[in-house]
């Protein structure tokens, strides 16, 4: 299954991409996905359709998630 990942701001700069598809053999949890992306241990918020996901929430094929740092604006 494929999940599209969109990284915001410093995360895209650190990991070298803003948006890409990731392949998984089976539906990952949000925590598994962020670990795979390389954000484990970094404070973040992960959302699907504008609503937050808990660590244990499972993703579906063709989901698009947005991962952002906990920032506070200008």
């Amino acid at each position: 299954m494929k999940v599209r990942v969109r990284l915001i701001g410093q995360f895209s700069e650190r990991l070298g991409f803003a948006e890409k598809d990731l392949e998984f053999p089976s539906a990952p949890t949000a925590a598994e996905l962020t670990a795979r992306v390389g954000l484990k241990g970094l404070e973040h918020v992960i959302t699907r359709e504008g609503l937050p996901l808990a660590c244990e929430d499972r993703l579906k094929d063709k989901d698009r998630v947005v991962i952002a740092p906990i920032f506070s604006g200008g």
Partner: protein
Amino acid sequence: MKGWTGNILRIDLTKKTHRKEQFTEEFARKWIGGRGFALKLLWDELKPGIDPLGPENKLLVVLGPIAGVPMPNSGKTIVAAKSPLTGTYADGNIGSHITIQLRKAGYDIMILEGRSAKPEYVLVEDDKVTFHPAEDLWGKGTFDTQKVLEDKYGRTAGILSIGQAGENKVLFAVVRSMEGRAGGRPGIGAVMGSKNLKAIVVKGTKEIPMADPKEMKARGVGDLKKVGDMDKKSKWSVQGTNAVLSWCNEMAALPVRNHRLSQHPEAWKLDGQRTSSARVATYGCPNCTMRCGIAIKDKEGHESEIDYENVGMLGPNLEIFDLKQMASLNYMCDDFGMDTISTGGTLSWYADAIDQGAAVGDFKFGDAEAAKVLTRKIALREGVGDLLADGSLKASRKVGHHSEAYAIQCKGLELSAYNCKYVPGQALAFGTSAIGAHHKEAWIITYELKFSERGGYGRDKAQKVVDLQRIRSSIFESLPICRFPWIELGWDLKNYPEYYNIATGANWTLDDFLRTGDRIYALLKAFWCREHPDTDRTQDYPPRVYFDPRIADKEGIIAGKHLELDKYDELLSHYYDIRGWDKRGVPTRKTMVSLGLEKEADQLAKVCKVSEDCVPIGNRGV
């Protein structure tokens, strides 16, 4: 007294006199500095109801006990006055060499009173104050003014100036410094202009008093490197605050078309990657470790220094997605000395009013060239610019036809670049901000998403808003200091009391700051109530369109969503309950006395009904 110089420089622009006064240690420990000092002094010294643009208003430049020391991001100054835009206390937090120079000159506070008969600038050199004709500077933009004064007094002289917007008393004119820095959104630049004061220049040579100067130097040098390294590692400064644009668009919290929409497919053209790629220079404030001023070339070839609020309000909010054109609008605002947020919010209200048939004109969303013409007219108060120079609320009241409903403001100040149609906690943060809708008071959107329920109205959100207002008012606005190391890099909040203690010899904890933050916020709201004695809870509502189902997005991730008035009212009641304010949003006598504001409660009671105590939540109704 250590940490503070203990000195006020009071300058009378009418009589051309000045004197040095002292403040007490008790005053210093009760109000910290910055906003705390300015608020208390303006409360004591301004008669209620005075004309903010009259000579009786006072312009304050205020510092605090760690201002200007070698500590990460400590180069901030507070400029304050009664606002001509909101009619209440107002301040701005501006990065400037004046932070260091005024402290070195031996002052924590500068009070400018009266009005010069002709345009002037004031020069402070330690104990010497001189008044200089500024007819040759009057009519110049802030970039030219800064350059002329820098050429004369040196690149590190502390310089604050206004542009044509301040001279013409545009109600959202700002004070500018160091070419790229601005402060005083609610018209502090107009107050300066009303005094015929083009600029303030300060040069100091004295030592800044510290309880433990050795420790301050050692700690500061180490932390400057440490925070700088944290920034490099995180790569925050690569995109700076402009990263917020993509996130707001993804979350449907972006102001598009005067907040009628909250996402736009072309928003990516202005995002953090695009602005970072277009960067030609980077700027920051004194002692900055994470410089956020990203300069790009505008359509005319000027360097235009942008951050998210500028981009959000002059870009998607006006449906302008050409990066260079947006940068041109930003450059014009900076040069005229005009707040970019309120300029964007007022122009978008005008385009909306024309769309709705309330106003006559040919300005349309997306028309960057017309927006530039209007921006110039606002700064010079020419034609329709004279109407728009008063901000969206006052303009809408003149135009009528129900256009006030879509003036996106609170207490007269236009919202910063966050669309709160489906973010109730942030709507509360804007609604209850006692200086008007400013993001510097509290910003809780990521909290709402990660730790709460996005569309929920739980008491936890009211608590979070109160917590942030406490922290920001006491630490960041009163020390004063930049909040970015804490909010963007996670530099521990406990550092700030530690620096305060090194500077002053005190033994404060974070709790002492939070309590002082409550005192400051109670007096901030009392100031509003004293100037608006018939105030009620509706003054703490966000823009009305957020409650209107007809304005809900028609598609996208928040299609059909909008704020619900009865639930917002409940959230507001929780906020008042936590604060100890009555159901009109007026601090009670019991609350004010508990915060050491007994005298101020008596003064407030002379003009506005002050309740003795709160009615327990659940029995109060709305």
